[in-house]
């Protein structure tokens, strides 16, 4: 039996008295594309923050490839092969696009905290940087300061930085939020290609994206997963439909039709 890429066992998280995550159980198999959906404020980003080491769980266990990572600092979790993107772009604003990607590659390329090497002299590093930029379509903007990029390009850079290192588990927090229709399509293709052979966990509000991309879907409501299953199972689940009232239920149907 192969172990899960990611496993959450009865994870709880409270901020003061606010119990935001209440007994989360989730298992994502290796190579699976897993979507987490749920209404605003359900705790999806908090869940990512717990997995990626930004927050420490109040209780429960989080296993990455069978290794306990709950409560480890974020940089250690990253080194164990997990990389994440942020709902709000979180980039190195004063550095160029190329420099952003190059920095994201340093650790996986084995540079550590080196102060005896020139970043320009590693051919592999240059080539991998160019390859990532080519792949996400930012190569023409390689020398643009990240702060001057358009919103959609900043989102793309966010994805580029996340997939750059060789992490085998990728968490994307609403990667297409705020993108136009065509930008979204482009981003989805990019995500599909870039995460081939990797494990992907994605939080998304766009049901078209969710149903188009995910192998399995979990529905998170008030800090609990109320349903997990294949897209068609989720679509027909009455509990899910009642959690999504009005417009969102509509979206669920539309997403299913798409």
């Amino acid at each position, binding site marked *: 039996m192969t172990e899960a890429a990611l496993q959450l066992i009865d994870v709880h998280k409270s901020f003061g008295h606010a119990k935001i995550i209440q007994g989360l159980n989730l298992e994502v198999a290796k190579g699976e594309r897993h979507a987490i959906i749920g209404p605003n404020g359900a705790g999806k980003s908090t869940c990512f923050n717990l997995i990626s080491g930004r927050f420490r769980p109040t209780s429960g266990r989080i296993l990455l490839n069978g290794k306990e990572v709950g409560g480890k600092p974020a940089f250690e979790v*990253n080194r164990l092969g997990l990389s*994440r993107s942020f709902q709000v772009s979180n980039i*190195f604003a004063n550095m160029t696009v190329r420099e952003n990607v190059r920095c994201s590659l340093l650790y996986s390329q084995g540079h550590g*905290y080196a102060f005896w090497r020139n970043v320009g002299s590693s051919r592999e590093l240059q080539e991998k940087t160019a390859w990532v930029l080519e792949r996400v379509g930012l190569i023409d903007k390689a020398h643009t300061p990240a702060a001057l990029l358009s919103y959609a390009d900043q989102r793309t850079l966010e994805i580029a930085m996340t997939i750059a290192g060789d992490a085998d588990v990728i968490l994307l927090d609403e990667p297409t939020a705020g993108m136009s229709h065509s930008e979204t399509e482009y981003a989805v293709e990019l995500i599909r290609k870039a995460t081939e052979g990797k494990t992907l966990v994605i939080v998304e509000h766009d049901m078209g994206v969710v149903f188009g991309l995910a192998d399995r879907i979990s529905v998170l409501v008030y800090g609990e997963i109320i349903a997990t299953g294949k897209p068609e199972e989720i679509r027909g689940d009455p509990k899910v439909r009642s959690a999504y009232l009005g417009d969102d239920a509509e979206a669920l149907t539309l997403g299913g039709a798409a």
Partner: protein
Amino acid sequence: MTTNMTTLAPSASEKFTQRALPFILFALLLIVIPFIGVSRGTLTLFNHIGINIVFALSYNMLLGRAGLLSFGHAVYLGLGGYFCVHILNWIADADGSGFWGNVPVFSLPIFGFAMGALAGAIIGWPSCRRAGTAFAMISLGVAELMSTAAFMFDSLFGGEMGISGDRMSGPKFFGLSMGPIEQVYYFIAFWTLVGTVAMYAFTRTPLGRLSEATRDNAERVQFIGYDPTRVRYLVFIFAGAFAGMAGGMSAVQDEIFTPDSLSLIPSGAILIATYIGGIRFFAGPIFGAILMTYMGSNLSDYTAGWLLYLGLMFISVVLFVPDGIAGLVFGFWRGIRSPGRYALIGKWITQILGLALVATSVIVVVEVAYRWSDGYGDVFAPFGFDLPHNGALTWVIGTLPLLAGILILRRVKRTESEA
């Protein structure tokens, strides 16, 4: 700009003109300076400029590159310098035998570097856990602590008089006795170049890049696999090391260190020099160090109010020219090569005129007020023209150009934002 598509790296010729050429020119300049017939006093000034260039660049490793505001960077220069003055004495005492007897004075900046690194490693351990305000406050506390401690431990720091040494002791290095000022000049020039090249190279290392990434977004650094605290700590050690190297240069040039060298005053001075030079450019601190050292040694001969002018200049730079001298220089260089150069030149001339008007009033007011308040009855008389504090003309010159200058500068600003 041509780029190699497979690597995006600049071409070899671009690398040469952008990276190697400036250093080659800098080296040539340093070599020829003594041949243009400068006086001893001027050479001493150049030596202090060299020391401050290394010091300011090391400070900018923190402020500009890592985004760490330190109020106590002189501590590392001071400790490196003190160590080197002690070494000067050990070399003299060893009288040619043993380890110290064989250490040439020329190599002292290496020892300063090591001492600065050690001090950075010890003091940085607690200080680098936090960035931002906490880091700044800790650096302030450390500076106070160290300079107070220096006054207490006489045997190490020599009390108020400090300790002094003799740079002419020890073995000669390439025939240099280090006695004549020209030889000290070449010593300083050599280490200035070494420090500048090394600190530039540092910006291009993985650690150097990570320090910028940590400045921009310490949180994200964690999610690319690095510990921002560790990045800051390592950068801090290097910044301390290069400051210590400047201390070693200073120990040889001045042959004395006093506890004041560890205090907040030189720390504040290097902050101002670095900022005025421009913290966003590698060359910024070099410009700042040159200007500030020059002003410090020359302007003080002309006017007792020079610190006041320095303060005004600092505030103006913070408010109006946040990219400092380097920003102006590179902006000028870009401007005169752009198609709109004539319009730009017109704008610059107008701005200089506005600035000159403002400066005229400010200088008149400061100088008149200063002479009036010190009660010696001196009258400010620029170009033999009396401006007494109760003369109507004095106050006309003290106000009208100021108003006119501000109006001109604001007008330029407004047309700029409309364009």
